[in-house]
């Protein structure tokens, strides 16, 4: 079997003679046919396929590039707007805290003023009261002194009799009281 196969291969390798078709045969009509076909094909396909396809490709690439650029621009705009918003928020916050601080200072000042005024008023009231009390006490003391003097005169008169007149008595009692 192996022998046969190797023989067979040997036979195949032998150049074929006698009317066998030659695959390397040069044929001018075949070449011309191919040229003409290829030329026509190239022209027809250029008009029909390649030109529109390449144009569509270019246009799509352009539109994609443009869309990308637009989106980048929009993104930048969004970022800027966001930054602006953030800045505004920050400003508002600062402003608010400033206003609150101011209000607090003002309120504190007002409070202090009110407190001082009320304290002053209170002090004034107390002083007045004290003064009134003092004067009332003085008056009472004077009244008491007068009463006591009269009483003492009358009592002394009762004791001594009518030996002394009233004016002398009176002066005497006053002197004594002062000494006392």
């Amino acid at each position, binding site marked *: 079997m192996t022998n*046969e196969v190797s*023989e*067979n291969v040997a*036979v*195949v390798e032998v150049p*074929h003679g006698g009317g*066998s*078709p*030659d*695959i*390397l*045969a*040069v*044929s*001018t*009509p*075949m*070449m*011309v*046919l*191919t*040229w003409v*076909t*290829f030329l*026509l*094909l*190239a022209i*027809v*396909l*250029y008009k*029909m*396929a*390649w*030109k*529109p*396809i*390449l144009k*569509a*490709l270019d246009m*799509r690439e352009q539109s994609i590039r443009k869309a990308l650029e637009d989106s980048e621009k929009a993104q930048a705009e969004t970022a800027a707007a966001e930054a602006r918003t953030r800045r505004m928020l920050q400003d508002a916050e600062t402003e608010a805290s400033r206003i609150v601080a101011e209000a607090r200072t003002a309120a504190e000042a007002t409070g202090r003023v009110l407190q001082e005024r009320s304290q002053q008023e209170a002090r004034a009231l107390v002083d007045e009261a004290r003064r009134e009390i003092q004067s009332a006490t003085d008056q009472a003391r004077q009244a008491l002194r007068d009463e006591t003097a009269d009483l003492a005169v009358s009592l002394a008169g009762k004791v001594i009799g009518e030996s002394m007149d009233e004016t002398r008595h009176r002066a005497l009692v006053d002197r004594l009281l002062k000494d006392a």
Partner: protein
Amino acid sequence: MNTEFISTIAVASDFDSKSQAVQAFIMHHAADAHEWTLLPHGWQQLPLYLSLHGIMVLFSATLLVVFLAIVCRRIPAAPTGAYNLVEAFVKFIRDEIAIPFLGEKDGRRMTPLFCSFFFFILTMNLVGLVPCFNAATSNINVTAALAVVTFLFMTVGAMVRHGVIGFFKGFVPSGIPWPILFILVPVELIGVFIKAFALMIRLFANEVAGHIVVFSLLGLVLMFGYVALPAVGLALGVYLLEVFVAFLQAYIFTLLSALFIGERLHPSH
């Protein structure tokens, strides 16, 4: 003619005549012919002025035009389906083949040519994988014609761009001692032809080899009978590989064309 081969193989008694018949069958299918096997048991005689591969060239071109006409009849803003597939290839050819080798300006201008190269070769390769059809790219005249287009862009195109003298100046690299130029310049000049020739051979050889391998594996069944049935699985594997090769070779032809044309349009690179 087809049935003749089959019957020859069937009646061949000894191994040698059998293998010779299989070989003849394979070579017959690899070569251009004036008949078209439309069904397993029928074939159509073709007129003298139109060979099988000629029909395949025209059929592939028509198929491509019809396909792209349907696909490109309206271009959606958001691509879907077949249009998306075609556009992906076009974009790849523009961004990965034309512009890197030819520069931004020339690359964009020549993208349609490379798209035509790629899709035309791809269609011819794929048509060759459909039963009853042949790959026109397995005909050396077809690949030669395509390589000549590249060659003309390498030479005439570069001459139009740089002038005849400028074109030849492009073969003289700067900063090299002058005695070496006596070797280098002729090599570079011959290189222009060799590059175009290599383009032709590479595409042709890859296509024809794939078909010969598939037919050889199937021929084993004819020669050894049911014992060789697993070879059909192998043939299927090679066939699937050929689907990949159809895309690969179309890509390589396009890529090398761009590389070679770019070399001559911008010789300083």
